[in-house]
């Protein structure tokens, strides 16, 4: 029973990892940019949620209505102001600039909030659970998180393939110069892609903050989980990313079931295993 429980919890945890990963996957797909500060933005969103819930006395889920637009705005400004100037053939400038951003966000949060672990309270929702047949109890919050992850990925998928914004994303992704000739402003499109990416980060950050305690230093770890989910699932495939997140979550929980010290290690090993046998991920769509 413990094992079934570990796997079910792992699947649900995978939803959160897919939320970490979706934004990363999106901007890589559109502009081949890897944001090293991605994890730190997740933590930034969690702290933003914390400030909003404590000062305005709102529930974290309501706070999402503020966190998501604020993060999206940060994303747009960041892309137009800084990141667009780093894009080109050389991969080093975007890498270094987002690395610098990561250090700035981490230490900025440290200055403001100190290194103490914080947590957001979602009231009764945190302890509510459902009894499943077979004596299994599953928390309502993890189920909600998983449902949100599926909804976010379905939403992104819809935007990407069924909206004019998605057409613009795919156009600049295929050939930036031609897209520009067709009347698309690529600087603006990239700005929108980063805004969308950080909007998802906003959701991920708030759920992270409800689920576990967090402090300014945990960003890089979240980046790594998101990255692993993207690679396991296959680059450019959002549903693959969800499956990647689930595989990662299940591996970690199985590892923890064997020995608590192996939780993170088991996730990394699952990732390296996939890299060894299927270097392009399980469901690759783009190179």
């Amino acid at each position, binding site marked *: 029973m413990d094992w079934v429980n570990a796997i079910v919890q792992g699947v649900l945890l995978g939803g959160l990892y897919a939320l970490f990963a979706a934004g990363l996957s999106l901007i890589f797909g559109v502009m081949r940019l890897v944001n090293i500060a991605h994890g730190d933005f997740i933590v930034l969103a969690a702290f933003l949620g914390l400030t909003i819930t404590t000062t305005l006395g709102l529930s974290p889920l309501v706070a999402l209505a503020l966190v998501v637009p604020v993060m999206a705005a940060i994303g747009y400004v960041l892309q137009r102001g800084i990141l667009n100037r780093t894009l080109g053939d050389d991969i080093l400038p975007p890498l270094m600039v987002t690395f610098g951003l990561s*250090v700035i966000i981490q230490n900025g949060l440290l200055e403001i909030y100190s290194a103490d672990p914080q947590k957001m309270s979602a009231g009764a929702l945190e302890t509510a659970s459902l009894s499943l047949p077979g004596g299994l109890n599953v928390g309502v919050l993890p189920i909600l998180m998983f449902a949100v992850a599926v909804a976010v990925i379905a939403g992104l998928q819809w935007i990407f393939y069924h909206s004019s914004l998605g057409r613009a994303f795919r156009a600049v992704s295929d050939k930036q110069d031609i897209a520009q000739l067709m009347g698309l402003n690529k600087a603006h499109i990239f700005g929108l892609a980063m805004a969308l990416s950080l909007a998802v980060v906003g959701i991920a950050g708030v759920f992270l903050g409800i689920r576990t305690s967090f402090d300014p230093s945990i960003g890089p770890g979240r980046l790594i989980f998101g990255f692993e989910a993207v690679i396991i699932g296959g680059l450019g495939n959002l549903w693959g990313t969800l499956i990647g997140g689930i595989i990662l979550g299940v591996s970690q929980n199985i590892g923890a079931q064997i020995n608590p010290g192996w939780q*993170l290690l088991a996730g990394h090993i699952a990732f390296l295993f996939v890299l060894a046998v299927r270097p392009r991920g399980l469901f690759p769509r783009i190179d």
Partner: protein
Amino acid sequence: MTTERTYSISRSSKTSLVAAVVGLLVLVGLAAAPLWAGRADMRLLSEVFLYLSLACLWNLLAGYAGLVSVGQQAFVGFGGYMLFALAIFAGMSPLAAIPLAGLLGALVAVPVALLIFRLRGAYFAIGTWVIAEVFRLSFAQISALGGGSGTSLPVALVKSIASSRSMREATTYWMALGMAVLVLVVIYALLRSRNGLALTAIRDSELASQSFGIDIWRHKFAVYLITAGLTAMTGALIFLQKLRISPDAAFSVNDWTAFVIFIVVIGGIGTLEGPILGVIVFFLLRETLADLGSTYLLILGAVAIVVMLKAPKGLWGMLKEHTGLELFPLSRRVVKDKT
């Protein structure tokens, strides 16, 4: 009638000759530091040398071979742990254990490279980070090496380096200086060689160098192994100075990769002089601003972003562009022969 002029290709210049003489004098002066410097100064200088070594190695990896790694702490920590393991389990003298730690570092880099070379560009970078995390979590599981809380180097082994404290400090200082010199010499010799020419070509354009028949994968693989081995040796020396190791300190991304990247980016990536200038700037900043704590890191991050946006070739790149200065005779130039 015009007189016939002959031209030839030369690498050395008057500047590089002067730089070599000055460099040697500085080296002699630094080697004599136990005679003129205090204990604290020597510790600081050792740290400067070891950071210089890490920076030059990262520069070789990222600046020349195009392998941008944010996981070099994997090899720093691995080297440190190998020193402790060889000393504690095999009773090996630290002096003998250091080169062996380097060799083991290069060996362990073989399977690592085979795996992560499947990732490209920025994803390669994060892949190296995952490897470093795997190393950190694995060493934290080894209870014979203190598990998550780490272990200290046995006193008897420390004393086997030299009997008196001042002699021990001088020995570790010389080893740190020797490490930096070794790294500089290896990289300089590599870049002057045929393979170095290939590497420089890869740095400038992968596509063009491939069309000239350069086996890019093989060159990158070789550079990765050399860098891993020398990084592990440097790591062994770093923890010989500290006398204590723990997983979090050994595999710290901030200490062994972030700072190193800042040094190289600020100094100038893709040049041999850049990391040297960078390490001087970094330690000047650190010694004046370190009291500010996290504000200092904020400033460092901002400086790195500004340098990357405004002067992507770093301080040395700027200097070189304006003056054509080159201290290490690496690039070839056409000179008119004297008649």
